[in-house]
């Protein structure tokens, strides 16, 4: 049954000029799971995410999201758009002429008919859930710190509680406490709304605590996929280097 999968990618090829970034990659994301994607910096994680969303043309392969084929008329953004999926871009991509609150309200305003006061309350609630105060809501994107930008972008991605959320390094630039709150928020939303999350991250703690499965991208392919424990035991040299490097050792050190 295809319905079991939220995202199905098979045999995907993506490249720029003469360089192939994604090379015959296949990946399935189950409905309601949180999938973490790891990979080298510059390895093509953002490119993979943007291709699934339909922002980068693919050279070959198939992409299906919620049973919709990306090649169907109108493309996925026509079928989906904000009500069905929320996207957090690596650089935030906030609308620079709108305040933080207006940024969060934007999908609500475009997709639901609500009164202004209720939209304000919802936007404030979202901002507070990602750890910002209502006063931060009045700031323009240029007045936000790097981590605050991330959080506003996250609040915007979650504004409509969409069925699928794509997150590109959501916790980079956040302090560990904020990152922990973020993990808890994602977990709560997954539990309540049955959210499917496709998350690119380098945050080992996030991978361990929230991700149901982790996929490793190397050489343009998924070289390992499974639970965190599966990946820790993987034999692939790059995956070993990633999880057993100096920085990662503390993660699975046995408590003495």
């Amino acid at each position, binding site marked *: 049954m295809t319905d079991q999968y939220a995202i199905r990618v098979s045999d995907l090829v993506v490249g720029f000029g003469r360089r192939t970034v994604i090379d015959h990659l296949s990946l399935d994301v189950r409905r309601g799971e949180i999938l973490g994607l790891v990979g080298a910096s510059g390895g093509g994680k953002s490119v993979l995410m943007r291709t699934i969303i339909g922002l980068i043309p693919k050279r070959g392969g198939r992409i299906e999201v919620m049973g919709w084929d990306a090649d169907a008329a109108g493309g996925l953004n026509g079928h989906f758009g904000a*009500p069905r999926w929320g996207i957090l871009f690596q650089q935030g991509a906030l*609308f*620079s*002429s709108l305040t933080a609150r207006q940024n969060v309200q934007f999908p*609500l305003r475009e*997709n*639901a*008919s*609500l*009164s202004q006061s*209720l939209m304000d*309350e*919802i936007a*404030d*609630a*979202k901002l*507070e*859930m990602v750890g910002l*105060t*209502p*006063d931060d809501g009045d700031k*323009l*994107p*240029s*007045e936000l710190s790097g981590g605050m930008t991330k959080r506003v972008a996250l609040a915007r991605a*979650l504004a*409509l*509680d969409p069925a699928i959320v794509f997150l590109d390094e959501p916790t980079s630039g956040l302090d560990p406490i904020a990152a922990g709150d973020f993990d808890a*928020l994602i977990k*709560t*939303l997954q*539990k*309540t*709304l049955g959210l499917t999350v496709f998350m690119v991250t380098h945050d080992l703690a996030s991978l361990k605590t929230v991700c149901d499965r982790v996929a490793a991208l190397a050489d343009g392919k998924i070289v390992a996929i499974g639970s965190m424990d599966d990946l820790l035991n993987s034999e692939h040299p790059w995956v070993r280097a990633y999880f057993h490097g100096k920085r990662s050792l503390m993660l699975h050190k046995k408590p003495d």
Partner: protein
Amino acid sequence: MSSTPLLDIATAGDTLELRPTGSWTVVNAGLLESLFNAAAPQLAAAKRLRVDLAGVREIDTLGAWLLEKISRGAEQAGHPVTVTGIDERHAELIEDVRKVNRTQRAARPRPNPVMARLEQAGRAAFGAVDEIVIFLQMLGATGWALLGVLRRPRSLRMTSLVYQTWRIGWQAIPIMVLITFLIGAIIAQQGIFHFRKFGAESYVVDMVGILVLRELGVLIVAIMVAGRSGSACTAELGSMKMREEIDALTTMGLDPIEVLILPRIIALVIALPILAFMGSMAALYGGGLIAWLYGGMSPAIFIERLREAVSVTHFEVGIIKAPFMALVIGIIACSEGLKVQGSAESLGRQTTTSVVKSIFLVIVLDGLFAVFFASIGM
């Protein structure tokens, strides 16, 4: 999957019983809000509230917030609230939403409209003074950078200067020539048409020659350059400012004026006189062509009359103005570019301001030169 949300309201004594059912999600946003608004008067009247969530099939942040708003309203009025039947899946979200929006946002004082107007007028007046100061500052800074370059000629950014001159000058030639050609042609045609009534057609040559060489050639080219290159300058510097590239440059010990602004201004000062010269020639060519085709004046006669009508002085008057206009365009374009703040909107605003202001100043400058040349008898 999603089912219509409903809100059953039943009163038992002084207890109000609410039984929400269906999908309380953002898909049904409009409906949910009207349900909430319809229940509001009864909520206000109730002394005791019981909410049974057993019938809720789906809930998201919006639904949870509306339900929370109901019970919070009653709590704040001091009425007891009991919530039952929370699905175990929904519990965490409802619990999370319960915590939000507890702090009141500090209400901002509304300004008195009359005072606001007065304040605006005052600020605008001071702003005008600031504008002059900023212009002079930029002029000074550029002059200073130029002095530095004169002392150490090697510090001039040659690559950038050549590139900018190529973009501002060379690439602009076709469009400038085309436009001035057309303008020269139009002036000649109008002149012939109207002068014909007095039998003074041959004076068209005087008119075209003097008008083009003294005023129109340089003025039109300057306005075109302001629109074409001044705006590009502002947009480039503005987006560099927006993305902190200018800050990065400063921290590396480089002077943005020397690196970015001076090459652009020098390129403008080099390119504009050349463009103005070419434009004037194209306009004369257009005028001559029309005089021949439409007025029946042979090219030889046109050139002969032109030689009598215009002197080098007319040409000098025109071309002397060009570098000054270029300087004004460059200074305005660069200082507006540096004024850009963080948003895309401010980039657009500053680019518009840059073009409007530099065209205005070019025309004002032209007027001042006219007065000056008249008084020294040129």
